[in-house]
């Protein structure tokens, strides 16, 4: 069918005598339009490549941003839990310490009874945090860890020197107390063995509320909790900053993609219009060739 059409068209083109110049003008115009259309399509191709690069960048930024958002919500939750624990612990401790002054309570609850489980639970929490972070190869409480160094370098660009100092101090402070927690043997506070009556009576008689070692271990554990709270807040601040920075970058990228996409849309529209005109020119020749062919047949 195509070859039949081409033969008719060919005979028509060969038969053009009168309007040969006019036909050439039409064809030249069509060639000009098609070169223009091809150029426009190539330009949109280049734009599409740019859009594609920006989209890839956007996807990775969005993934990073969503991970940051998850981490932020995790830190918010942890800070709330820590603050709740501190508040409950402080309330209970001050009441209990006051009751230690009464004759009965000074005998019925010893420093080891009261402070021991808290120390055990803090050391266990610390070990859990350590295990979790070490798994990713991040020594979070070591200021010289490459990740911490990179973070400090990053915040130095946008935070004030006072804020950077606070961030560094929060790491150093946690490190100070983790060193002390490392020296605590959890077995001393696990209380696995059930005491016999004789031990209980000895404890009652000695009523040692302020066993210095236990007391020190308790306050080191409590200070660790305070330090972790401050570190978590600093880390959350850093995450929020990074999240806002990513958000700005995402918005800029989105804006770039939208404007490139609009430009591409316009160029493609022009290409289609041009293509349409070229198509019309070709159709004029094809239809004329048919008309001439039919006329010849009738004659």
């Amino acid at each position: 069918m195509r070859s039949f059409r081409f033969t008719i068209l060919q005979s028509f083109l060969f038969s053009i005598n009168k309007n040969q110049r006019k036909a050439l003008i039409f064809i030249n115009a069509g060639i000009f339009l098609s070169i223009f259309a091809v150029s426009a399509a190539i330009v949109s191709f280049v734009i599409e490549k740019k859009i594609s690069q920006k989209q890839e960048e956007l996807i990775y930024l969005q993934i990073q941003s969503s991970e940051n958002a998850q981490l932020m919500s995790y830190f918010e939750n942890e800070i709330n839990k820590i603050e709740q624990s501190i508040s409950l612990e402080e309330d209970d401790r001050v009441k209990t310490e006051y009751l230690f002054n009464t004759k009965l309570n000074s005998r019925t609850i010893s420093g080891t009874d009261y402070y021991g489980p808290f120390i055990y639970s803090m050391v266990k929490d610390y070990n859990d945090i350590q295990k979790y972070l070490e798994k990713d190869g991040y020594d979070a409480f070591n200021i010289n860890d490459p990740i911490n160094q990179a973070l400090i370098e990053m915040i130095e660009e946008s935070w004030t020197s006072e804020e950077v100092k606070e961030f560094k101090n929060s790491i150093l402070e946690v490190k100070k107390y983790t060193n002390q927690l490392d020296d605590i043997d959890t077995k001393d506070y696990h209380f696995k063995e059930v005491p016999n009556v004789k031990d209980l009576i000895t404890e009652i008689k000695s009523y040692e509320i302020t066993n210095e070692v236990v007391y020190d271990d308790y306050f080191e554990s409590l200070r660790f909790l305070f330090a972790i709270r401050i570190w978590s807040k600093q880390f959350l601040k850093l995450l929020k900053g990074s999240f806002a920075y990513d958000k700005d970058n995402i918005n800029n990228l989105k804006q770039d993609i939208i404007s490139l996409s609009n430009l591409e849309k316009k160029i493609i529209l022009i290409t289609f219009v041009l293509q349409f005109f070229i198509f019309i020119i070709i159709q004029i020749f094809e239809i004329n060739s048919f008309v001439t062919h039919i006329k010849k047949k009738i004659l």
Partner: protein
Amino acid sequence: MRRKISSNTSVILIIIIAGFTLSSYFFDQMVIRKEDKLRNLNIKLSSSNLEIADLNSLNNQVEDLKYFIYDEFFLKKRYRNYWIKNLIILDKNFKETQYLNSEIQESINSVYIAITDIKTRIIEYYIDAVVAHNTINLKIKSIYQFYDKLFPQYFEMVDGELHYNFPEIGFSEMFEEIKDRLNSKDFNKYAVLSYDDQKFDDAIENFNFNDWYDIYQYSYVLVNNFEFYLKYIEPDIDFLNNLIVSKEEYRDNLIAEITKNNSHKNFFILVSIISQISSLLFLLILFRLLIINKK
């Protein structure tokens, strides 16, 4: 009249036109294939998102359970000796603490009420530990029972049917741990206190110090055994965390692949357009050549 195409240039032009037309068809086909691939990738992405959401929710539930066990353990441990020491101080039979007895009794309005209260608290502490064990077991079951694929180790096949079988530690088993140290070796004597109010009241009236000390020891062991569940739960949390990380990596790769395929699809559309226009361009050049040749 039919005329043969004599010019070689015309033949070359016709071949180029055909080439561009074919290339246009080919890239149209590629667009359809990419569209199909994108549809499949989007389905995979939705499933992956659902799976990650499910795993995150499971992980949160297991984490919460861990903190529940920690809290129970910590709070019960803190007051583990409190009531038994009170009883020792107020019990007239302990000569070692007799000198304290008179001194402290002066500060108590009613020694009888105080002792009854202490005994009630000893039983309540024990019941709380039993309830905590049951609550932990129920929480574990409600979390794990639907995840036989993720945790096959907690399921067993009985007569061709899969049954939930998370390791449990029985109350009698815990009783056995300290049986040698107990005054009464009868498990039921203390077990009934957790559900029979009459036995509870009788215990307050009739139990001697050895019985109270037995309940204290048994409660102590019950609280110690809260850690039994952590042996299973803590590795499960690590397992879930690792699984979530790997699933998220897979999802991120899917997203990247979707983006890549999307831009490929757009490239193919553009290449197809360029091929169409080029084919028209060469067709016009061919027309021009034919007219000029006629001249």
